[in-house]
């Protein structure tokens, strides 16, 4: 019987230990992996003494926040992709906050007009081509990928991934529904293989000779270039980078953001704002580049030397919210063309 008592005690201790949180802590719902955001949070705690607790999940955190309602312990939401930020705004889960610092640190087109969500870093969707098989300068625009001369040469991840969907939205914004669908159909008919894998896998396919051209987020190139595995560094060496749509009158490369906001029913709003402000300040903005090869949103902060060495580029200044609002139309096109 004693054994059972001890077992019972252990269980009770376990059950209670994970449940109670102190109020001077900041609770974060994050769509970004812990190993990516922990360096930021550690620095934040060191600077301010505010401890942080994190729940990381790729899907469903908005639903969790909504069903918890007023009882939610969440203070801050951190996520990647404007599509996800918009879902939070659309469900009315974020509070509108006044912060001069945030308004100053983040350009207008990368934050919401009602001050609910804020872009924290930028990533560009770029084209990579094989050094050996594609002549430099033969591809300049995203539109070129639908050109029949590249038949059987292109690899991408599935169309229904958020990154592809966002790119699709930017095409709709630029060319209208009909032409965007024509482009998508052309792209699909140029694919070397069924869309699969993440951006890393596309680069690998170029290295292996399955295809010559791929679309990736810029930071994947950095991750591969500095990978701890020699074979992955070799993949990166086999590539040329193309920042698309850089012509004089062209719109610039499509960018997306990682971002965040303060939960509507946060009990620690002032602390939550502090975290967002910290993330847009110079130190954190630099860190985004150093850890994950992302571009700063803060115009006063320069991109890291490494990023600069890949070339400077003009970005598409389309208000980022437009991308999110076109998401459904994009998915419909993607379904129709079978990307």
């Amino acid at each position, binding site marked *: 019987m004693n054994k059972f008592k001890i077992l019972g005690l252990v269980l009770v201790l*376990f059950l209670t230990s994970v449940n109670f949180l102190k109020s001077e802590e900041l609770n974060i719902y994050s769509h970004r992996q812990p190993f990516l955001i922990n360096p930021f949070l550690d620095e934040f705690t060191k600077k301010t003494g505010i401890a942080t607790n994190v729940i*990381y999940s790729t*899907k*469903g955190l908005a639903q969790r926040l909504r*069903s918890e309602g007023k009882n*939610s312990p969440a203070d801050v939401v951190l996520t990647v992709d404007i599509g996800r930020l918009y879902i939070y705004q*659309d469900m009315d889960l974020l509070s509108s906050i006044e912060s001069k610092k945030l308004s100053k640190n983040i350009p207008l087109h990368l934050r919401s007009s009602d001050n609910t969500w804020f872009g924290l870093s930028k990533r560009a969707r770029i084209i990579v081509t094989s050094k050996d098989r594609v002549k430099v300068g033969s591809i300049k625009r995203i539109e070129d990928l639908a050109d029949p001369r590249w038949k059987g040469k292109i690899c991408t991840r599935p169309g229904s991934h958020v990154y592809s969907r966002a790119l699709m939205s930017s095409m709709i914004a630029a060319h209208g529904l009909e032409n965007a669908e024509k482009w998508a159909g052309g792209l699909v008919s140029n694919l070397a293989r*069924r869309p*699969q894998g993440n951006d890393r896998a596309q680069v690998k396919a170029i290295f292996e000779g399955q295809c010559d051209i791929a679309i990736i987020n810029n930071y994947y190139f950095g991750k591969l270039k500095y990978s701890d595995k020699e074979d992955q560094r070799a993949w990166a060496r086999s590539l040329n980078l193309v920042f698309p749509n850089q012509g004089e009158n062209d719109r610039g490369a499509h960018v997306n953001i990682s971002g965040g906001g303060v939960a509507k029913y946060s009990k620690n709003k002032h602390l939550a704002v502090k975290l967002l402000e910290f993330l847009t300040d110079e130190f954190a903005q630099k860190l985004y580049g150093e850890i994950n090869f992302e571009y700063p949103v803060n115009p006063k902060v320069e991109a890291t030397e490494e990023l600069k060495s890949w070339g400077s580029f003009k970005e598409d200044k389309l208000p980022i919210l437009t991308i999110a609002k076109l*998401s459904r139309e994009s998915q419909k096109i993607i379904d129709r063309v079978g990307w």
Partner: protein
Amino acid sequence: MSLNVRTLDFWQIIVLALSILIFCPLIALILISFGDSEGLWGHLLETVLIRYVKTTLFLMVGVSFFSLLFGIISAWILTNYEFRFSKVLEVLMLLPLACPAYLVAYAYTDFFEYAGPVQGFIRDLMGWKTASDYVFPEIRSLGGAIFVLSSVLYPYIYLLSRTAFRETPNSYYEVAQLYNRNIFWSVSLPLARPAIVAGLALVCMEVVSDFGTVEYFALETLTLGIFNVWIGMNNINAAAQISTFTFIFILMLLLVEIRSRAGKRFNDTSSRQTNKKAKLITGIEAFFCIAGCLIPVSLGFFIPILILLSNALTSLNFHNYYEVTKIFTNTLIISSIGAFCIMGVSTIIACTAYLSGKKYLRTVANFSASGYAFPGTMLAIGILVFIGFVDRTLDLFSSTDSTFYLSGTIFMLIFAYIVKFQAVGYGAVLSGLTKTSPNLIWASRTLGMSFQKTISRITIPLIKKSIIAGGVLAFVDIMKELPITLLLRPFDFETLATFTYQFAHDELMGKASIPALLIILVGLIPVIFLNKILRTNV
């Protein structure tokens, strides 16, 4: 006698209450599916729905076929023959249970794709230079998914059918032999049908709700469609509709089977319960038997483990081992608590429902075990909505600020595990019960024992093995579980599965390999233990 009736009533109410509680999150999902789908069905029907349904069906049929093949053949060999290594193989066969399907998919992709060692070796051997020089089946495909899923799911069928084969009384075989009938087709297989079907049902539900593997292989199944509609089109209602539709489909399949089984009996009433002796074999026969068992277990366990190991060896210095140990213990504790709760609940529900003889009670109990057919993330959303509702109701009755909320607690997580894995426990208990002769129960009741006492003194000891087997399966399932834990866990609460996922999600296989191997390692202990229980005759 009247007292007995009253205790039965008491248990009936308990069972009803438990079943309804477990079913509530599913009701929440069904309610969400009544919401506005904003005309998306027209678009879906025109474009992708047919493709989703087709892929899902092909995947289900393919995986069912190969799991049955792997599971039944190996179970049959190991019950009827004794040969060198047969005792070891008995344990080995169960090992794939410890491997999460999506991790095996990651491992095989590394292994079989163009850049992997297999194709590299073939190229070197044949002197081919590029992909266009030869044809090699693509691993990220429907065939690849069938291969991966059946390699890890066949143990469900192996486990349940072996128990059934072993418990078939020898007298039946003697009769069959007298009439010169094939004992496999005319005795073993028909008698093991409830067990095999229970296993197959688990396999099918796993396939339909699988997200990790199909996402990685970019297979357009219904589950993948659910997420495209939900995240891509920002419409949770339509997503809930697709999952409810899938759910009803699975339920219908199960009903067909239960119907066709109705009125048949699978238990033995004779008192002479000797079991068939295994035949000793050697030489070439033994070789074929060993091969028949080794093939599936190599596919589902040894090869993926070796791939993961070789990945892990290249990145040993990435983790904080103190953290990993903590997560390891955490995983053990939460899985044990979960498995214990599941077996408690499903034993109460199954025994009462089965032995009460009330048809409606059985139907209710069957429904409570249907959470398994929903994709984990959708189920998690049902649970969030339901628990959110409970919390708000609690709010109404309390005036202070310090109300205790269930949302975001470990209790919510354990409840979620019960909802999801009730099928595992319930199925195991039920297959034990169908093998037990009701005469024993009636005798006990006639002799004046109460319903409660009959259950605790007669039924539970008789089906102890099934209960423990179910508990072990539930333990392993919880330990591997990803989407529910990911979404419903409390702050800073990691299990090995969630810890692995953050790396695997980014295709950082080196870093993911160590925690992945730990998941498999933790899974091995109960799996080996399970075999020991099944061997000793209770």
